[in-house]
């Protein structure tokens, strides 16, 4: 029945301006990609929650959490990288529009993660919605991706060395994306600052993002679309 009702424009509804190629190349990248973009997530949703949901569509290679550039905390979107195209397709077809952490999430194909794309670019903590379940949410903690050990910082040794000694790995081919050197300027500020649930977040409190809010401001997809 799909073919009788198909919406042919679906694949290319979003055009990432940062994609370094033509429209055709962009579409080809989307057609072949094993990466999906997940939007409209709660700031509190952890990678493990996403893992539990998205691993039901297939084995996951990586998850890259979208982060607020300043606070180094999640800002409502992430990328999930699968090993196989079919799994990515199933994730888009079957998980898009369903609820994660009480929010209807968006799942789209993505042309592939590149270093730098994890940083959210919008006004963080956009929605100022109703405060349903505030007490419960208050018990949750944002994962701080800053601190002394940062997954996004470069490895302290050369790449070749890292590869040696492992041999053939089980579906874990590292190096599907290579991290460029990235050092954030304010590491010392972020260091060790596992945020206490109720401190200094009055202005940009992600807790105010509640069920049903839209975070159109937050994720870089929507930003792109408006240009």
């Amino acid at each position, binding site marked *: 029945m799909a073919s009788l009702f198909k919406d042919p424009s679906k694949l290319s509804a979003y055009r990432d301006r940062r994609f370094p190629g033509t429209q055709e190349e962009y579409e080809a990248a989307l057609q072949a990609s094993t990466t999906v973009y997940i939007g409209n997530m709660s700031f509190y949703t952890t990678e493990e929650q996403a893992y539990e949901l998205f691993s039901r569509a297939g*084995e996951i290679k990586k998850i890259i959490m979208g982060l607020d550039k300043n606070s180094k905390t999640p800002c409502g979107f992430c990328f999930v990288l699968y090993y196989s195209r079919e799994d990515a397709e199933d994730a888009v077809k079957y998980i898009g529009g369903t609820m994660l952490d009480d929010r209807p999430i968006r799942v789209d194909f993505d042309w592939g993660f590149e270093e730098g794309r994890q940083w959210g670019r919008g006004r963080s903590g956009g929605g100022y919605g109703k405060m349903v379940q505030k007490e419960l949410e208050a018990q949750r903690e944002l994962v701080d991706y800053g601190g002394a050990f940062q*997954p996004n910082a470069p490895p302290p040794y050369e790449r070749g060395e890292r590869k040696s000694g492992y041999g053939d790995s*089980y579906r874990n081919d590292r190096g599907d994306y290579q991290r460029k050197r990235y050092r954030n300027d304010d590491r010392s500020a972020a260091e060790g600052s596992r945020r206490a649930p109720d401190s200094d977040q009055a202005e940009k409190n992600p807790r105010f993002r509640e069920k049903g809010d839209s975070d159109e401001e937050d994720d870089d997809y929507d930003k792109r679309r408006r240009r």
Partner: protein
Amino acid sequence: MSAGWRTLLLRIGDRCPEYGGSADHKEHIETCYGVLSREYEHSREAIFELKYLEVLTEIFFLPKQFLLECAEQLPHKIPFFGVLVGLINLENEDFAKDIVDTTQAKLQDALHSENRDRIRILLRFLSGLMCSKVVVPNSIVETFETLLSSAATILDEETGNPSWQPRADFYVYCILASLPWGGPELFEQVPDEFERVLVGIQSYISIRRHFDDIAFSVFETDEGHSPNKKDFMEDLWERIQILSRSGWKVKSVPKPHLPFEAQLVAGKSHRLSPISCPPPNLSQTNSEILKGQEKHEADLKYPQRLRRLHIFPTNQAEDSRKECAFYLVSLPVSFRYEYLMAETIFSQLLLLPNPPFRPIYYTLVIIDLCKALPGAFPSVVVGAVHALFDRISNMDMECRTRLILWFSHHLSNFQFIWPWQEWSYVKDLPRWAPQRVFVQEVLEREIRLSYFEKIKQSIEDAAELEELLPPKAGPNFKFLSDESTENTDGHKLSKELVGMVRGKKNVRDIILWVEEHVIPTNGAEFALDVVSQTLLDIGSKSFTHLITVLERYGQIISKLCPNEEMQLLLMDEVGAYWKNSTQMTAIAIDRMMGYRLISNLAIVKWVFSPANVEQFHVSDRPWEILRNAVSKTYNRISDLRKEIQSLKKGLQVAKEVSAKATKELEEAKSVLEIVEGQPAPAERPGRLRRLQAYADKAKKEEVTTEESLEAKGALLARALEESKELLKLLFKRFVDVLTERLPAVSADGEIPNLRAGYQNVNFAAQDLETATMEIDNENGADKNSEPNGQNTKNDYNVGELEQWCLCTLGYLKSFSRQYATEIWSQIAMLDEEVFVGDIHPLIRKAAFSGLCRFTNEGSQL
């Protein structure tokens, strides 16, 4: 205008705005036909306006294609499409004949390409066309007879191959399935011929072998072996006979042709060219093993159908699922069918060995239906869950897992609202009671999708169930710095290691530090304790933190765990660090296998180590880890096969490119001219150089591709070898732990009945102690404190040891079924090394029924 007829075709039979909200099917057909023929008239005029070609395509090609597509993809509307073709047939015989011929060709094609759904639906469409006088009834009878005779041939030892009975069954099933749609007309118009078909089916049913489908049944009966139960074909045949005795009245099949009968009889009925079935797959062998493999292949290709009607098109329900939900709630039938719908959806979700779609798809279908029918469907889902919950102790383990995953996901889409109080009694059941384990695992999965406090709140009304919640997830770091313990060696070394990681020390330096400062004084096991705990702690913040630590510092662990013994210890460390999080334990072990820090064999050994074996019947934790390891192994193999496939294609291309470039170069070189009486190259040196470079590059490309193909081939060979070892170890371990614990076969050969129940409880407790398992005392105490046993109706009376055996046998069956194809390819090795000697009959039964294998005695277990 052209959009008009399309929409009308799609929406025919629906109560919808396109048809002015009317539910009168006759009106629908008249409207749709009116628009179609106006379109046709209009374009006949247009023919004179030089748009000849386009119009011809539009009129003769598009509607025909579209109609056929509609019939295939909206099969529940076939009677309507049949009437439309019948009406067109009155005006335009060629159009109708073309439809008949194309359908015949498609059917022929589907039979040879073994496209089961298509075969079934096209037969139904032909029946629909016959009802509307487009196809001669005798053509339908002939088609049935061709299928029947092919089916009978397959069953014949001499001319066919009884291993392929599933294919024969399928052909007969297709005939039976189309009878509700065309039976009455056949009975009226060609009674003798029709009777002949029914007699043929009767004789087929009498010679076919009963299919004992215990491998694929969702619920296990007490004995598992029930010779009196009707299989799918027998059941369907009986229903069809009832139908024939009652004059073929089926209210689920619309009969829109009846009001048009007077018109339709004037049409010319077309003959169907005869169809042919592919020849039977002849047996290549007399060996039992190879016959078993053949039968398994046939079972997979022509799986048994469920006891359900195929009235709606979930098969096609892909990205336009909203449309599908719409169709599901507006079928053109006159009775309420939510229950039938739920039954079908749950049957598919629990279908063994595999559901038609990935299980997660059904969450979506059920959500959509709940939204489309908010008044009716949610309560049907609640009813279905309760019905399944009541029978959970007999449910196949694989199905139970699917149900847990679906249910937790479903609830996460509905704010985790569920009447938990109705199930609160399970906390008084023994901790191995399947209902209790089910609730506990659903809560565990809910928490993974959400968070602890939220789920705790969701069971507020059934606070008794709080004791079934897993501990609040969080790391359990052995070397956590606090004042009292800070001075142990472990704490000091751990701190030192953290310092080195923070200070971006080189991995080599850290390895040196471990080898020179930790191992000599404290030993390798202690070093592993400190290193693994500390690294796990550094990577504890998120999944990404974990894999980053493993990528950067995995080598240190790898150095410390060169053998399986150390890898087992490493898994103990993971289990201890993440003792409060099953998910993180599973993820960490899975990733460590990914980086080859742990082998799949080590994982199997660890899962079958005493501490985990004790958990087999009370938690899904060890099974999740085992499932991950096995599926990762086979995922890897399937990845490699795909890569090799594409490399082979690439090599072909590279070879062609290289040959062409070389040829071009040679040709250019061979063009000579006579310079000063001597032959000399005529081509410009620049072009030659360029061609040479192309040829070199192409050759290099070819060689590189060849090399990577070879490398992948070697990896595949290694992976296959590893998977063989994995299967051997997996089955050995199953046999070992089960042999240790299964109650013996009695002296007169009676196989123990594990579900016998209460009278065995005391026995079980005694056996249990000898089998090193202890009844949970706390739980026993709780149970006694319950006021005068008011929950007796819900007592679970299978003893702990029996439940452990049932559960482990269930997983053994589930693993053999899921990996049956791989196991069949290693069956000779397994027969030689694992299924030898005095294997307990229950073990053999579980493993072999998963494989649908016959035992030596020739009867299927």
